[in-house]
Each structure stands twice: as structure tokens, then as C-alpha cells.
């Protein structure tokens, strides 16, 4: 299963890649929202999973979710943030995020969230 991870921090991207890859997920990484949008556009098959940061320079995670919603892409979104507030969580939920995870996290915590979202999709389909 493919998962697109978007974060402006290389260390976070690498952390996620290592954790998710250890469970056999195919991780595609994007350092910015624009890069992520390009990947989503160019990818031949729709990507099933997206893990993204909220606060990023130029465009933030909310913008990315809005674009995905506007384009009508069927993708399960997980939002992560180092500064989770009620407002951020509520907005993410409104924009269709499947779940939320606060940074920092242990590999187990991330895997549990991502896998539960992925499984949900599987049972649904």
C-alpha cells in the first residue's frame, strides 16, 4: 500500500519513512504542499493514504486538504501537528481528515493510527 507523507522537516519525513517502511508500506515523500500536489496529479493510480503536517511554509496542510476536496480525490488523510489546538483539529475534521496525531510520536503510535485508517478503508471497500 502506498502512502504519501508531506512535511517540510526532513527528519520527520525520514522518521515516517522508516517507521512505515518497516511495516511494508510504500512511502512517497514530499517536502512541500506544491510538491505533494504535483505527485498526486502525476501519479497514475490514485494514492490511498496521505500523512501530512499542518504548519508548512508557502502552503499549509489545510490548503492541501482543500485542494484534494476540490479535486474530488478519494484519499484517506491523516493530519499530524507539533502544536495541536481545538481549532486545528476541528478544521482538519471538517476538511475530511480521518484522524489526527500529535508530534512527537513513537513508531508504535504512528503505526497504530495509520494502520487503523488503512484497515478501515479496506473493510469499507
Amino acid at each position, binding site marked *: 500500500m502506498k502512502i504519501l507523507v508531506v512535511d517540510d522537516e526532513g527528519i520527520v519525513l525520514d522518521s515516517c519513512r522508516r517507521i512505515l517502511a518497516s511495516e511494508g508500506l510504500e512511502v512517497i515523500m514530499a517536502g512541500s504542499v506544491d510538491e505533494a500536489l504535483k505527485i498526486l496529479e502525476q501519479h497514475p493510480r490514485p494514492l490511498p493514504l496521505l500523512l501530512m503536517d499542518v*504548519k508548512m511554509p508557502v502552503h499549509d496542510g489545510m490548503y492541501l486538504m482543500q485542494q484534494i476536496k476540490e479535486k474530488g480525490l478519494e484519499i484517506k488523510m491523516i493530519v499530524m501537528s507539533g502544536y495541536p489546538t481545538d481549532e486545528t483539529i476541528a478544521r482538519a475534521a471538517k476538511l475530511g481528515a480521518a484522524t489526527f496525531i500529535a508530534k512527537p510520536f513513537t513508531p508504535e503510535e504512528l503505526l497504530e493510527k495509520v494502520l487503523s485508517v488503512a484497515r478501515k478503508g479496506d473493510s469499507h471497500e
Partner: protein
Amino acid sequence: MLYSVRSKLIASLLGVALLVGSVSLFTGVHLLKTHVIDEATNRVRLDLNTALEMYQARIKNMRTALSITTLGSGFMDALANRNQSDLVYRLGRMAHHAELDFAGIVTGDGQVLCRIGPHAMMSAAAVDNPIWKLALERKAPVDGTVVLTREMLVAEDPELAERARIPLRARAESTQAAGDDEISGLALAAGIPVFKDNAVLGVLYGGKLLNRDDTLVDTVRDTVFLGETYKGHNIGTATIFLNDLRIATNVLTPDGKRAIGTRVSTEVGNTVLTKGQPWTGRAFVVSDWYIAAYTPLEDIFGRRVGMLYVGVVEEKYSNIQSQALTVFILITAAGMLLAVGFGFLLANLIMGPVHRLIKASRQVSEGSLHPDIGPIQKGEFGRLQKTFAEMVEAMGRRRAASESKIIQSEKQASVGRLAAGVAHEINNPLTGVLTYTHMLLRRKDIDAEMRNDLETIAAATERVRKIVKGLLDFSRQTKLDPEPTDVNRLIGGTVALLENQALVKGVAIKFIEGEKLPLVILDRSQMQSVLMNLIINALDATQPGGSIKIYSASGLSGNGASQKGVEITVADTGSGIHPEDMDKLFDPFFTTKAVGQGTGLGLSVSQGIVQRHGGHIRVQSELGKGTRFFVWLPIEKQAGSYEDTRG
């Protein structure tokens, strides 16, 4: 200025002074008028009596003088012998002592034997004098007032006739012509018959002509009024009238002469002469107003032949009145002046502290917390001052408190901002540290010592993570802005905002207010969001024709602690919640609505807000029948009750 306390006070005092002044003025003047004039009238009436007494006394004196003469030694012999020269000598002496104008002796058969004056020895008596004639007729002494015709006077003494003639003057207030001169005379006279052997030997008579004789009236004036003067004139006057004509008077004409020859007013003449009654009152005499009294004079035959008058100048009394009036007016004016002065003083006394307080209030509004309220006075004003001082002190305390609160919240806010920044920056590398540590720990090829070190790193990182989370939680607290709130008002306002929406959907919405609810300290706008969210959810779940009821009531927390609080219930008759969804209800990512359809903040956010207020949300639901959300809030927030349930 016109409505200031000072002008009101002055106006009131002035009003009182004016009222009291004018009342005393009117009553005083009225009393004075009646009393003074009455007193003067009474006095004049008494004075007239005295004058009449003096008039009578004059007659008695005359009679006494005549009687003594008849009893003198040798008089009888001289009369019997008709010794004219002796008798004339005796008459002359008597006339001199008794101040008689005429005197004579008549024989028993009515022949004039002798008399004083130029016709002393003339025996032929052309005219009878009524005084001796009556004495002869009555064979008894006679005295009194007599009217003598010109012929009688000429017979006595032509000079007397000349003195008696009084040219008539026109009355000041009358248009009547002066008329003929008065030529008769009014006289005081007495006649004493002298008897020998029961037969009248003769009659001794004598008298005094009153015409132009000032002695009597002046004596009356000087005796009765003691020569009292007013503005250079005697205030008292006396007059003898022959009929209505002044023949002897000390009433003066405007040119300063005695007003002889003028007549009395018709009114007085009618009363006194025609009706024979005394007259007292205010009268215009010659040229001035007098308080006057008149009494008729009768002659020896009982006929009214003249009048006696006394009077005082009215001006003196009216002057007393006007003086009193002036004094009263002055007193009133002084009273008013005093009122103004007192008003000012009183206003200053009253308003001084008020102005000081106004100044003090201004000082307070300009920021001073130690205004000068002046020395604390006694009474109500002192209470006001004390209350004011207390108020300022309380304001000071509150300001200090709110200042420290502001400083506190600013501190919190800046710490919050710092925490947010730090958290965001730290959490990214921390993610790396945690991940790599755990990834390394998964490897089997590490020795025990390294594993131990890596576990230490993981544990230390967990600690850092907790510290950062604590910082973030702390920064979130600052977002509450709690204040004492009337829950019913808050709910009422929220329901009013959503009534239209309910109406459009055809759902009845009703708020049942709980009574006597205590104030709850809460963040109004956040709590309103919570209520709005609950009601909107209820609206979405309820079909047209259904209803939503909102209740408020006092209630205990119910989870063992039994803390006092207020419970708000939002009950709908909607579709209800599946039992398996009940525990996911407060998950921020749980929704039964289509993606993007949810409005407002989610239930999780509402729960977060309620929990941060120290309260909690409960749900009861029955599928197909409806749902009830209970929001419980404590009356008093407990320290450290803020919780964050998010992971």
C-alpha cells in the same frame, strides 16, 4: 447656574422672607391704621370734653365774680341809692378782674342803671340784653351762652359791635359765595338778681364777647395739647362757632392767619347744628385733614347757637403710619438681603463639600486613587464621604487586582506564544529522536549496554515530550475569559439566534428556564459556541414537526464528588444515536454527517471547552425517539480542574 442648589436655596429663603415680610407689613399697617386712628379719635373726643369743661368753667368764673361783687360791702346801698358813680366804679373794677367785655346793672323794672364803657351813665335803654332780661323774669341767677345782636352790642359798646363783625370768607372746598358779613356776637354771660325785701332791686350782669377772642381757644390748645407741635405748627386746634361760622379759632389758613370767617362743612353742620349730635371723625378743616370732634353749644334759652371744636392734624398719625410702613419695608428688604446672604452662606456650607467631592471624583476619573475629599463631616454628608472613600479604595483594590490579572494573563499569553513556538520547533526533532531511538531498539544486533543507553534516551525523550505537552496545555488555558454569567440569559440569547433556523425547518424550539440559578463563572462566547453546537446538532437530527427543548436547573456533578453546579439539557425528538456510536461521539474525527457538512465546532471541541470549565457532557439517546445532551458546569471553578483529554 439657574438650577444650582445655591440659586434654589436663595430663591426659597427669599420667598420665605418676602412672604413673612409682606404678611407682617400688611397686618402691621392694618393694625396701626385702626389702632392709631382709633386712639387719636378717642383722644380728640376726650379733648373736646375737656374743652367744654373749660368753656363751662369760664362761665362759672364769670358768675362767681359777679356774685362776689353783689356781696361787696356798700353794693346794696349804692344800688338802693342808685349811686351811679359808685356803681360804675365797682363795675369797672369787677370787669377788669374778671376780664369782662361788658357789664351793667339793671333796675328791678328793667331800666339800665349804669354800665361799663362809653354809655356808662345813659339811663335810656334802647335795647334789652337777653341775659338780664331772663334773670329779671326768673328772679334767679342766669349764666350761659348768649347771642347778642348788633343793636345790643352797640348799646353796650359800639367798639364791641365793631369787634363782633366778621367778614365772611369763601370756604376752601365750596363754590358758594361768601355772603353777608356776620354782625351778631356770641358771648358768655351771667346775670345775678339782687333782692331786697323779696323784691328784685336790680340785676348785675356781665359777659365776654367770644367773637375774635382767642384766649379761650388758645387756652384750650395750650392746656389740652400742651403746645405740642408738628412741623412747626400746633397739632391741636380749637374753634368756637357761631352757628356754622368760625368766630374764634387757632386753625390757620394756608397763609398762616386764623381762619376766622370760614364755615364748617355741610356734613358736620347738619349733624351738629341741625340734629344736635356730637360729631367725631376725619374732617377736612379749612385746608388740612384733621381728626376732629364737634359738639353743639346751646344758649341760655336752650337753642343751638354754635359749636365747639377740637381737632388734631391727621398728618402726624398718617405719618406714623407711613413711617411704620417704611420701617416694615426696610425690615422686609433687610430680611431679603439676609436671605440672600444666608442662602450664599448655606449654599457654600452645603455645596462646599459637594464641590470637593465633585473635584475628588474628577481626580479619580483622571486616575488618582487618593483624591482629597476633605475632613470627614458629621451626618449624612459624612456618610457620603466615607462611602466615597470606601468606593475609591475598593476601586483601587479592584484595579490592583485587575492589573495583576492583566499582567498575569499577558504573562500567560506570552508564555503561551513561546510555548507554542517552542513546542512546534521541538516536536519535529523530537519526532526524529523518538523514531530513531525506537528503530534502533528494534534491532537485535545491539548489546545490552547499548540497549540500556537507548532506553535511557527513549525515557528522557518521553520526559521532554511530557514537558512540552505541559507547556502547550498551559498556553491553552489563557484562552478562557471567564466572568460571572446568568446562564438563563446566555441560553435565551443563543436560542433567539437559532429560532429562525428552527422555524424554517419546522421544528419547535422551547427554552424552559430554571428558577433561582446561581451565577456561573464561564467564558460566555466559548460556552455559547458549545450551546450553539448542541442545538444545531439537535436541529440536524430532528425531522420537521419535531421539537427541541432546552432546560436549565441547579444540579450536583453526580460523579461521586457532588459538587454544586448548573445543568443545561438539550433534548430533541430526533433520530437518536446508534449504541455502537455512543463511545465515539466525542472523537473529533467521528461524524455521521457527510464530509464537509458539519457546521460549527465538533462535539469534541465542545467537550474540551466544557471540561476546561471544570464541567462535563453526558448523553442519553434512544434510537428513533430522541437524544438528550447534559452539560454540567460547576458554580465555582476548582483550582487545577482544567483537563485536556486529548492524547
